């Protein structure tokens, strides 16, 4: 969208104003995502109250906003906004104020790379998973700052627990994420989602027994990394009063809360993309319609409708994950800190490592999967879908980059000077090859230099080392003589 707008602006004669399009689009995306988090948090908090109410034989909120109390969270939010801005006297005022924003910003920026449907992503990164994992880990900084800056001992305890827990659980979480990456051959979340289109048997959780196992490890680690029960040690109310949240109130407290619910959805959304086919439903309804009618799934009204369906699929899966988290929270007691770390290092890491090797061999020796055993072939929701292997290998193979008519016309207008540049941009693969070739050509020169350096280093070493050695030998012989 940004590219289209920028070229349109340039075309309209506003040279040098192309950046405006990027700014506008960024603002639109940011506003959309902020709404996703804010509205998501409102809905999830309401859900949590309703579900916990039903679990505990209560009704939950019933009055605010009609029969089901769905405006309760909003009313609470207004109450929190109007609360007095309290800060303990011992607190480090700057860090105390900054901490909630750090925590919230981490959760928020992770949403940038989370695709909500086929191609519907604010920032299409080819290292989406890596980015998500890195940014999700940033949330701990906010908690640490909060615990340190509050000037309360209980807050400090909570922060240290959180730090220990999050840092340990990054390890198995990373290992769990590597497995889908290995199967799909890409870190691009959109591509991973599209590779699972077709029947639900294409979902990675049904890929082999190891991925089925690793999903549960991932979910446990995900709950631990977003600090939910039974791993909510950082805010364990029966031990640490409220942990790092002890001294927070009003809007600052609710920012932490929003960050928590945001990352809950993030973790379960990631689970949906990596293991449950993301925006692909269990049956490729749109693929079947497309095959029957010939309507395109790439562009046009039907494609938009299909992607909207995908969005609903994705959100349903994400919300289901959050519901399970809520269910777990209201059923289980809390673990102790040593048990949490034990579970991580003694169980999650080895199981993840075992599954990693298992998947490695499973894909290596091409074991049959559910699809090939049942010999099912269903039309895909994604037009490019030509089997997982083809997509996986796509990034190594030469890709036919087609230059759009619009870009061609631009290039022709600009004259011959632009054309080589455009070709270079489009044919990255060729470029890479050339670079490889250059390296090969340059090789004969380089080793010579290395050898020279090595010789010099070797001589130096010899000169330096020989003397102490000699001295040692001398002293030893003297001792022996004595």
């Amino acid at each position, binding site marked *: 969208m940004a590219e289209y707008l920028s070229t349109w602006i340039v075309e309209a004669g506003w040279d040098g104003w192309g950046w405006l399009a990027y700014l506008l689009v960024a603002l639109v995306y940011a506003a959309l995502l902020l709404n996703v988090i804010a509205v998501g948090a409102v809905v999830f908090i309401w859900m949590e109250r309703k579900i*916990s109410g039903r*679990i*505990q*034989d*209560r009704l939950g909120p019933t009055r605010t906003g009609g029969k089901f109390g769905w405006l309760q969270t909003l009313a609470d939010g207004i109450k929190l906004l109007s609360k007095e801005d309290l800060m303990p006297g011992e607190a480090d005022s700057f860090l105390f104020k900054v901490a909630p924003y750090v925590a919230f910003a981490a959760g928020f920026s992770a949403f940038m790379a989370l695709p909500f449907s086929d191609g519907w992503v604010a920032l299409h990164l080819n290292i989406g998973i890596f980015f998500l994992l890195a940014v999700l880990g940033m949330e701990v900084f906010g908690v640490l700052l909060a615990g340190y800056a509050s000037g309360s*001992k*209980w807050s400090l*305890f909570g922060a*240290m*627990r959180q730090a220990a827990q999050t840092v340990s659980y990054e390890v198995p979480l990373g290992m769990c994420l590597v497995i889908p990456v290995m199967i799909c051959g890409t870190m691009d979340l959109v591509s991973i989602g599209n590779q699972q289109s077709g029947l639900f048997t294409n979902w990675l959780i049904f890929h082999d027994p190891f991925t089925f196992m690793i999903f549960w490890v991932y979910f446990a680690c995900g709950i631990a990394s977003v600090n939910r*029960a*039974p791993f*909510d*040690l950082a805010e*364990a*109310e*029966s*031990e*640490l*009063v409220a942990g790092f949240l002890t001294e927070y109130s009003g809007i600052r407290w609710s920012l932490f809360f929003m960050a928590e619910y945001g990352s809950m959805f993030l973790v379960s959304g990631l689970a949906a993309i990596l293991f449950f086919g993301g925006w692909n439903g269990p049956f490729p309804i749109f693929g079947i319609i497309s095959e029957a009618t010939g309507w395109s799934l790439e562009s046009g009204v039907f494609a938009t409708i299909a992607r909207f369906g995908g969005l609903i699929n994705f959100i349903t899966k994400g919300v289901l994950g959050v519901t399970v988290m809520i269910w777990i929270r*209201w*059923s*289980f*007691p*809390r*673990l*102790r*800190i*040593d*048990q949490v770390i034990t579970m991580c290092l003694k169980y999650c890491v080895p199981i993840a490592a075992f599954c990693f090797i298992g998947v490695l061999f499973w894909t290596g020796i091409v074991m049959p999967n559910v699809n090939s055993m049942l010999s099912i072939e269903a039309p895909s929701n994604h037009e490019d879908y030509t089997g997982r292997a083809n997509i996986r290998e796509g990034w190594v193979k030469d890709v036919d980059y087609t230059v759009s008519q619009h870009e061609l016309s631009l290039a022709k207008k600009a004259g011959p000077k632009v054309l080589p540049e455009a070709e270079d941009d489009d044919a990255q693969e060729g470029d890479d090859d050339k670079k490889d070739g250059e390296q090969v050509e340059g090789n004969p020169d380089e080793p010579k230099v290395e050898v020279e350096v090595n010789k010099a280093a070797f001589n130096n070493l010899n000169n330096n080392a020989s003397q102490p050695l000699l001295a040692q030998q001398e002293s030893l012989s003297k001792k022996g003589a004595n």
Partner: protein
Amino acid sequence: MATAENSQTVEFDVRTDEMLVNMGPQHPSTHGVLRLVLRTDGEVISETTPHIGYLHRCAEKIGENLTPRQWVPYTDRMDYLAGMNMNLGWSLTVEKLMKYDLPDKARHTRVIISELNRIASHLVGMGTYGLDLGSFSPFLYAFREREKILDLLEDVCGARLTYSYITPGGMTADLPKGWTKKCNEFLDQFLPVIADYHALLTTNAIFVKRTANVGVMSAEMAIDYGCSGPVLRGSGVDYDLRRDGEERYTSLYDGYAFEVIVEKDGHYPKDHDYPNVPTDAVLGDSWHRFYVRMLEVIQSMDIIRQGIDFYESATGDWGTPMKISTKLPKGEAYLETECPRGQMGFYIVSDGTGPIPFRVRARSSCFSNLSVAPELCKGILIADIPSIIGSLDVVMGEIDR
């Protein structure tokens, strides 16, 4: 750990500061107003000192200015979760001084009511223990059933928490008509619910991990510290005042068949389908203390069923409550009863000059039970503090009086 003996070690080892932390009196898991001063090195606790007295209301001194009948409401407010049992202890002590014998019907009424209150009290103990360990739902399941017991007790005496129903001389009223049927109905629907509690807490893997082998107290230690009730029996000491107490108290339970809940030769008395003891659990740990309470709920239900049968065929009336102005004979009396939290003793001295006693004292079970805390809470993690204090199930109103 760095030690001061080796100065070099101190120099090169990373030494962290010890922190003094106040847990309470305004802390979610200290059951009221208990204050624990913890000396911590990171998450490890090296010393725990309980501080009490935040709920002291001079109950004993007030007792020396009121007649025994007037002091009954003050006993309600000691262990406010088991008011009936407090009333019973005081009433029996006064009756011992007066040498008054109860009619049969009143005896069975007292057994039914006090056992019913014992169930309610253990339900709170169980629910709050789950809360201490971070499990919220069992607490509400426990309170849902407790509400039904409170409804029954409300039918009896009009109050839901501070009953003042059992008084010296008998009761303030007979059980209402049709009450025993209601009580039986409650017991019938309550029995299957206990399986839920076992599923959510007793046998839950995380719960077992948090409680088994935590705060292990040997039988000798429990006896040395004067522990009583489920805390003592959880350590494997076969002692229950309902069987081993004074004649005046055990005679209430004449004709009742019940077994003291204590582990004998590795297993508990098995009348019902109880969950098995997990392999990690050691006799005397938090899990066993909790388990004894859970089994006592079922035991009390059996006693109530028997009591209702006895009550319906009993002769006599519900006793004649002592008048406020009744003159006390010269002498003294001390009696201990088995309350939900242990043995609660009341002591009364009268100089024979009027209706007001010369001295009134109460022996608190929770006070002795809590005195173990500094010993148990050494070298443990912070998270174990709620696990241990919760398993002792203290009520500050009874400790401070």
